């Protein structure tokens, strides 16, 4: 059911771990499935993401998207990181099964939450960034039966 890329990132996840005294930390949970993701960002004075780590309690897709998302934001500016949407992550993974699309939203949201934390701490405004909700995907997935 998962692509090779997904399986690769699931089995060999990049950037697992924590960053002490991180510039920003974001933790988000998926109300739908109960999974939890935490992202740590280390951002330098030029607003470049120097390092990133994650911890995830979640399904295969959650682990793989966490891993891929950290890869995609690493070395980017915070503004560029805003472009790492769940779509971008999914594309980089050669796609996800429909029922797993929401897991990639978790990754996007975790990055946003970490960026928000960073912005708050530093009194910065990042364009397009909104305050993260805690329950991000309630009632968002369509019932298959209702097409």
């Amino acid at each position, binding site marked *: 059911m*998962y692509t090779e890329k997904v399986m690769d990132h*699931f*089995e060999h*996840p990049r950037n*697992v771990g924590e960053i002490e005294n991180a510039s920003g930390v974001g*933790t988000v949970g998926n109300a*739908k*499935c*109960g*999974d*939890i*993701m*935490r992202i740590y960002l280390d951002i330098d004075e030029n607003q470049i993401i120097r390092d990133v780590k994650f*911890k*995830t*309690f*979640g*399904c*295969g897709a*959650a*682990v793989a998207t966490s891993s891929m998302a950290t890869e995609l934001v690493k070395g980017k500016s915070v503004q560029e990181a805003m472009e790492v949407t769940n779509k971008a992550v999914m594309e980089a993974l050669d796609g996800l099964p429909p*029922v797993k699309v*929401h897991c990639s939203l978790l990754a996007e949201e975790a990055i946003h939450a970490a960026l928000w934390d960073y912005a708050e701490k530093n009194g910065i405004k990042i364009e397009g960034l909104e305050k993260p909700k805690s329950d991000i995907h309630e009632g968002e997935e369509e019932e298959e039966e209702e097409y």
Partner: protein
Amino acid sequence: MEKRIYLDNAATTKTAPEVVEAMLPYFTEHYGNPSSIYGFAAANKEVITGCREKIAGILGAKTEEIYFTAGGSESDNWALVAAAEAYAAKGKHIITSRIEHHAILHTCEYLEKRGYEVTYLDVDEAGFIDLEQLRAAIREDTILISIMFANNEIGTIQPVEQIGQIAHEHGVLFHTDGVQAFGQVPICVDEMHIDMLSASGHKFNGPKGIGFLYIRKGVKIRSFIHGGAQERKRRAGTENVPGIVGIGAAAERAARTMEERTAREREVRDYMISRIEKEIPYCRLNGDRTMRLPNNVNFSFRFVEGESLLIRLDRKGICASSGSACTSGSLDPSHVLLAIGLPHEIAHGSLRMTLSEETTKEDADYVVDALKEIIQIQREMSPLYED
């Protein structure tokens, strides 16, 4: 061949080679329609009766009380919908439990939409219903009690005989979903006061797509699939002769081997449970320790998510499940695990391993070793785990 340890026998089983052997002639040689008059095909009618007889014998039932269906889900739907319709004049109240299979629960929801009222009994932390709660739930207009014989996730075996007794004391029909129990534990419909019982061939080394519903003589339920006069006019459709031959052979085999087979399974099961409990921290055995299906092992591991666990096990050649395979299309945590009181995130990290007669102690060792390693990896990656 790659290593494969198949521990998902509650989801489905391998069709036994002797069962396939028995079925084969009915595809290309004795392929006639049993309703036909010419001898070549009419002989199949007797073949079917023979299979009915075998199954009836195992249950202590009468031959004509066994009706073939397309599987456990159809049997469950039939029992509930058709009994509800047949007894609507008496009342519209049904009693079931929170831990039934979806084939029961979703059918109850359907009946609720059609004006029936359903009481869902709670279960305790081991998965047993409370007989006093059952007794208290019975009303004037209660027409049916449907409680599963054994649970497909946690393996808990209900006190079926007492449930049947309570039902019959109150003049209420008793249906039991025996899909997981048939072939695994002895069943006697008379002693246990069972009026209807569902079973499914592929759960006991028979083929998929065939099951049966036992209906006690005198129970007035109408047919669920309308049409031809097959199955005493109660279940229309050209008989699935190879399937019926297959389920007959599988039932006979299951009954014949039950004692020895389940003794072996129980031994490996308990060995596995004790090793896991000793060697993996933060684990919890789900279900009862003794009133438990002989092949069921179900654990929750804290700080571990089920799907990830299954994929990693799969990479090591181990086939297992997390909650019911049927619900894996959904993201909701298992309703059974929630019903026995597990919090959301712990229900999420549960693992079901259901053995077969082929599972050895060596397999168990390999699996437990793999589990230890995988759970360690997952915990280290979890934001919840601080060890």
